[in-house]
């Protein structure tokens, strides 16, 4: 049985990248002892070529997610929240500004519409965030969390439908 281990050799210097040495770890079957062979150049079998997304020395299942996708997911959740807050806040603020105008039927209707729209926007935003987070986690393959998000949305629908205060 053989394992591939990447070892960085020597002290890293600021200007030059550290030299890389490949070590092959060989285990004698049935005896529990290991013979370590260090060499400057070792020809690796094809199946042991490192995977591009896997950090050196870290098993594939423990490797962090590719940074771009992880960051993109969080950014989308943040964007949904921020957009909802800014749009509803802007509409509420505009309704307050309109209150300073001389009262007429048109102004009254505009204020009413703006406030109802802003309130609806504000209430939908956290639910949309939940849906976006669940979808993005599902896209990343984290089905457990996607299912939890779906479960929360379903329970919220039940709670609101039944008139409970969650």
């Amino acid at each position, binding site marked *: 049985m053989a394992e591939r281990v990447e070892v960085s050799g020597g002290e890293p210097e600021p200007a030059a990248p550290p030299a890389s040495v490949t070590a092959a770890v060989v285990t004698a079957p049935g005896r529990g002892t290991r013979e370590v062979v260090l060499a400057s150049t070792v020809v690796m079998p094809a199946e042991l070529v490192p995977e591009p997304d896997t950090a050196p020395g870290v098993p594939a299942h423990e490797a962090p997610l590719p940074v771009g996708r992880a960051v993109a997911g*969080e*950014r989308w*959740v*943040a*964007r949904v*929240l*921020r957009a*909802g*807050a800014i749009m*509803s*806040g802007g509409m*509420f*603020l505009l*309704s*307050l500004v309109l209150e300073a105008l001389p009262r007429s039927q048109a102004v009254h209707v505009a204020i009413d519409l703006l*406030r*109802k729209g*802003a*309130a609806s926007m*504000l*209430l*939908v*935003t*956290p*639910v949309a*965030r*939940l849906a976006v*987070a*669940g979808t993005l*986690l599902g896209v990343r393959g*984290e089905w457990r*969390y996607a299912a*939890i*998000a779906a*479960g*929360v949305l379903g*329970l*919220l629908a*039940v*709670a*609101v439908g*039944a*008139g*409970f*205060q*969650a």
Partner: protein
Amino acid sequence: MLLLMAAGGLAGGLGALLGIGGGIVLVPVLVLGFGIPMEQAVPASLMCVVANSCAAAASYVENKLSDIRLGLTLELATVLGAIVGGLVAAYVAEATVAIVFGLFTLYVALQMLLVRAPRQEPMTAANYVPSNYPLGISGSFVAGGLSALLGVGGGPLKVPLMAYGMRVPFKVASATSNLMIGVTGAASVAAYAWRGHLDLTLVSPLVVGVLGGAVVGSRLMPKVPTAVLKKLFAGVLLGVAGQMLWKGGAGLWPSVLR
């Protein structure tokens, strides 16, 4: 109107800093300071909790302070608890629950004020692992039930639960609570709005103030030392404990406290 905006700004800033939404500040201010009836103050403050959550959590999620996965898990238990709380509300003595909850928050507040945490806390959601999920889930279930029974937000219970029960860093617990309270708050407001109890004339200046306060609070929170946040949180918990004990006392001994 400017005073309402200022009250909203204060509640938004404090809520964003501590992950409690700000309702605990707003309701007494609206009722005692502005003479607004409780029936209007509660849904208005819940609307502010939603606004606070949206504005503050956007920043926290971007800065990786909110733990989305942990939030989703505890959210499920909270909503389930709220539904169960709503179902059993008719069979539970509200005053007794309020007193038990008041004593519990008093204990947690004193614990936070008097006991020093020796551990060094990581700054983001990236470099820690929450522990004791069964406690966190069952505690969130209870928090949801209390929310339905007593009308208190889950934040004052969930932040200590995550920070002390699940060993989540305090700032991450606060930011994650901020993310969660928006969903539960929105569901509560929707229930009030459908019954026609939401006064948008009152809500408008409050939400504008809360959004401003939440933006400031969410920018301040990463810079404020954790020890200061804990002391502030303990102060707020003392306020919650006082409110709950008063509410429970008024229910059990109305002739003395009313």
